[in-house]
């Protein structure tokens, strides 16, 4: 008997299964740690302490989480429309250009809260622009968006490097990066928010873009489940043939979904560029776009799930940095391994645990 069509209650589908997936991923990561001769439990301890042990650690964790919320939302929005956007990385990168240009233009003249809305627009517009061509190619020419977005990650990297090396670099400076933004181009830190919980933020770059991310979560929820456009996207995502029947314009919906997706990815740069480093740097995205895939898969493409998964990955990122510091034998690339395993278990092997859970649950669930 197959179990695929048996439905499980939400708390199992959205709670127990992701948790088990995570545990499996951690278990295999533990094996790797053990294999290279370190104590996995010790490692886990360092990881958790490093991520949550102090105020600044939590600040870093939330800082990373902010980036992952943006990219996770980006992947999720596309996903709802049936599109697998692997290009959040590149869209975030190019989005950074938008944010930086706004910051560079305005930081001298106005305070940050005036710059911010323009920066949001700039980041989103540039990110969206970078998603547009793959979207158009998918919609009009049927080119597989997975491959085109990967290609655009590479193309975006080349473009950004060119601009940073030849155009935006401060003459005479070594590193290909823009000048440092003045406070008018920086997003202030959220010391006060941490203080509410009696924590000291310290040097952690946890900043206002976290709040923007939360607003975006709400807006994405609204979009997907409370607007006609969201309805169309979901129809298209679940059943393209039903979308045709319903007269939902494929080209328009695909392109809009990808523009929103790219815009959200682009806004990740608010956090990294304007919130943390106060300048546009080469490769500042540092894989956050790819983490977004894992976050979206784990969070089941729902904003609440995405926030939780993003924080989890924030813990991994921050804790992982500390872990590699405490146990030099374990490099931070361990996080990439965990990330891959999470994607594997949460995304590709999601049906592995289901039948067993259905069997476990069924005797109790039904009356």
């Amino acid at each position, binding site marked *: 008997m197959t179990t695929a069509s048996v439905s499980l209650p939400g708390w199992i589908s959205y709670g127990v299964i992701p948790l088990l997936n995570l545990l499996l991923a951690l278990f295999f990561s533990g094996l790797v740690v053990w294999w*290279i001769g370190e104590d996995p439990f010790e490692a886990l301890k360092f990881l958790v302490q490093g991520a949550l042990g102090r105020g600044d650690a939590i600040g870093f964790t939330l800082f990373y989480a902010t980036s992952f919320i943006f990219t996770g939302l980006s992947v999720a929005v596309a996903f709802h429309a049936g599109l697998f956007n692997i290009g959040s990385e590149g869209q975030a990168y190019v989005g950074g250009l938008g944010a930086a240009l706004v910051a560079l233009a305005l930081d001298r003249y106005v305070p940050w809260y005036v710059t911010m809305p323009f920066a949001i627009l700039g980041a989103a517009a540039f990110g969206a622009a970078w998603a547009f061509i793959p979207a158009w190619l998918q919609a009009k020419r049927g080119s597989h968006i997975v491959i085109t977005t990967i290609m655009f990650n590479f193309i975006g990297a080349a473009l950004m490097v060119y601009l940073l090396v030849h155009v935006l670099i401060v003459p005479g400076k070594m590193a290909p990066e823009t000048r440092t933004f003045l406070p008018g181009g920086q997003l202030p830190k959220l010391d006060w928010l941490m203080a509410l919980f009696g924590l000291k933020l310290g040097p952690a770059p946890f900043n206002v873009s976290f709040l923007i991310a939360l607003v975006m979560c709400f807006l994405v929820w609204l979009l997907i489940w409370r607007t006609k456009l969201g309805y169309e996207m979901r129809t298209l995502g679940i059943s393209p043939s039903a979308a045709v029947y319903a007269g939902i314009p494929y080209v328009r919906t695909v392109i809009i979904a990808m523009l929103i997706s790219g815009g959200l990815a682009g806004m990740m740069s608010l956090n990294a560029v304007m919130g943390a480093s106060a300048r546009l740097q080469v490769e500042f995205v540092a894989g956050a776009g790819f983490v977004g895939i894992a976050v979206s898969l784990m969070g089941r493409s729902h904003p609440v799930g995405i926030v939780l998964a993003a924080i989890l990955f924030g813990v991994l990122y921050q804790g992982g940095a500390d872990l590699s510091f405490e146990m030099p034998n374990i490099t931070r690339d361990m996080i990439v391994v965990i990330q*891959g395993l999470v994607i594997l278990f949460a995304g590709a092997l999601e049906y592995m645990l289901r039948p067993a859970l259905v069997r476990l649950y069924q005797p109790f669930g039904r009356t």
Partner: protein
Amino acid sequence: MEYFDIFVSILGSAIRLSIPLLFTALAGLFSERAGIFDIGLEGKMLVSAFAAACVAYLTANPWLGLLAGIGVSIVFSLVHGFASITNRGNQIVSGVALNFVAAGLTVVLAQAWFGQGGRTPQVPGEGRFAPIILPGADAMRDVPVIGPLYANVISGNNILTYIAFLMVPLSWWVLYRTRFGLRLRAAGENPGAVDTAGISVTWLRYRALIVTGFLAGFAGTYLAIAQSAAFINNMSAGKGYIALAALIFAKWKPVPVMFACLLFGFLDAFANFMQGKSLPWIGEVPVQIFQALPYILTCVLLAGFIGVARPPKAGGVPYTKER
């Protein structure tokens, strides 16, 4: 420098650069023809490069390195199979996942074992696949036109290069002239037909993935101990994706795959060559343009401006009988 010499030089470079693409694209050919999209080629290449470099470094024997590269790559293929065949997971997602695991695991292990910033130590000369000078290469060198071609392009490559080109007709033969090939192609078009013919689709697809692992193992090995002399983190640097693009460009056929890979290799070589040089009228072209060119070209190809590619019909869809 004579234009012809430049051409020969670029051609030689193109061949060297296209070999990993060729192995990888042929690897993808087998899995995709069997109905499994393989975006994880990149990761397979990477792990096999790592394994090959480790073993070649420890044993100073390139063949053992190759064996290790192939073995590890097959293991990765089997994991992909476990996720996407046995558990009917999304093939793209599992491929992406394996790419991450590969990128992370190789560096973690390399750093833990060798402490060289995620690289393996340099493989000694005898642990590598050295260039082979074909008979008469030096004598031929001065013969106009064919001389330089023979001496610099055809001769002077390592054994894996020749194996790669041999793999092209071999793949063709396996796909179109053997029972395994017939069934494999059928599985990619209509797995139901295979199943009702009394053949296990699962086992067939697993075997296709093993072939994929086998060929991707060559690609990684080539990168690590033929083209260079160590594993370097992320040394595949997107070649798996380019190979995939070549596969699409070639419409999933072995001989066109070879030409597509040569084209991409040529672009890469040309980019290297053009670096820092000026073009007439245009002036110095930023190297980034050349770096991005294969990716741009891939998009143009995918857009079907150069003919539409029809992928294997059942590709990307897990085979399920019972909904």
